């Protein structure tokens, strides 16, 4: 099984009905681990069906397979249905390349730094 890890931290926000999380991805998401790792995001969506604001930190994410891109699209669909938001930060060029060709960068904005991503996430959430 290839190594991959997802850790979730709270992002402090002032609005009470808004749930902002920093989700750090590490390693390689492939067929051997992606279904297992995706569960943690689905649990989060289930826990906060509305106003969920996620900042995906891809700095240490080395590889995404097609299934993980499918999951990313699905997460986007579910979260935006609940008036939530996803932004991505510090994506490696190979992954950014894939996301662009797939068209996901038109749905999920990608930022060069965590601060920019956080700012964009929270401003779009009305928290700036």
């Amino acid at each position, binding site marked *: 099984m290839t190594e991959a890890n997802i850790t979730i931290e709270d992002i402090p926000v002032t609005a009470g009905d808004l749930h902002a999380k920093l989700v750090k991805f590490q390693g390689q998401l492939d067929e051997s681990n992606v279904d297992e790792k995706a569960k943690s995001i689905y649990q989060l969506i289930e826990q906060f069906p509305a106003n969920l604001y996620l900042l995906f930190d891809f700095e240490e994410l080395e590889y*995404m*397979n*097609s*299934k993980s*891109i*499918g999951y990313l*699209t699905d997460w*986007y*669909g579910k979260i*935006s249905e609940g008036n939530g938001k996803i932004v991505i930060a510090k*994506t490696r*060029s*190979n992954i*950014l*390349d*894939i996301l*662009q*060709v*797939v*068209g*996901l*960068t*038109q*749905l999920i*904005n*990608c*930022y*060069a730094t965590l601060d*920019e991503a956080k*700012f*964009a996430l929270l*401003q*779009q959430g009305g928290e700036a």
Partner: protein
Amino acid sequence: MAETPITLYAIAVILALIPAVIWLTLLFKKTKRRGIQVIIFMGSIFSVVPVFLLHYFLNIFPQFDILSFLQSAIHDQNLNYVLLFISVGIVEEIVKQALIRWVDRKFLLIHTINDSIRYSLVAALGFAFAENIFYIVNIYTQLGVQQLIVAYLFRSIFTTTAHMLFSGIFGYYYGIAKFAINIVEQEEWTGKHKKYPAFVARMLGMSKIHAYKQIMILKGLILAIILHALFNLLLQFNLILPVVIYVVIGFAFLQHKLSQKTGQLILVTNADNITSSMHKNDSDVVVELLGMWFNNKKYVDVIHICQRLLERDPDNKVVQLFKAKAMDKIDNTSAYGKVLKQMFPDKKENEKTMDDMIKEKALREKNLKQLPFKPQITASPKESDIQTPPKEDTSSYNLEI
């Protein structure tokens, strides 16, 4: 009427030429390679020669006539007819296709699956033309002019169309076989692994692609023979209405195949192909996603991704195939396709596409104030990514969705 044999054959040639010319005009209104069609047509006229030579040979050496041997062993008349018509089908279909295969090998004639179908239709027309001459002469001399009129009209319309149907079906599978490398790769990305060709390849010590090619050619030939035998059988029992229905439905199916984007796609690879600007591993991830979403019937998303990927890798035949197949799936212009969709509807047609989500996002963000910085993107995706067709290979097929 007292005609000399030469006059009789001359009239027969003119009469047989009329349906051939009408069909050729109808089928190839916009074609550029008329010369090669004439060559195939002329060549296929002479393809009746081996059929007659075979009959002649079996008359001289009846000990080699396996069919007569089998027929004498079987006392069921209907079964004998089936055997006869299958044997006729085998010989005629092989002969009709031999020319196409030879011309293709010699002149690299076939660039698309539709080329393979169309040139097979020309070969069928040539064969039917030659066959019609002999039938016209025989019917006229044996049964007279009144019988000839009915037979002539029937042969001109239905028998000629039937010949085109059989050859067209074979041509379709020959086209699939010819472009097996790309077709197999595209299908494997959708998870359809070719187990049977892999088994044949192991048994016969050949590559899987080569085994797949041979299986496709054989499949086309067997289908053409079965269709041919069935047509002859229906005629033998004078089942005219079923014959008419059979030919009309069969030809509509062929027309449907000819109208598909997949068939129009140029699959011949050129030496001066443009290299991909995307890393192979990254491109594979996207193609794998295409396979996944194609299976999930997300055809609109597949088309959009293909468009973007083709901007980076314009000559990727597998991606072109994905796009063409996805376009065929959502195409509503073909009546035959509509009937098929009614019978086998796509379950997920109403599911939200990425395009829908992008539009919704744009609407949501319209009222938000601008951020002081831009998102991190290596090359800005253009708005035209979604709406406009790519610039490449538009000559081969219409890329509008």
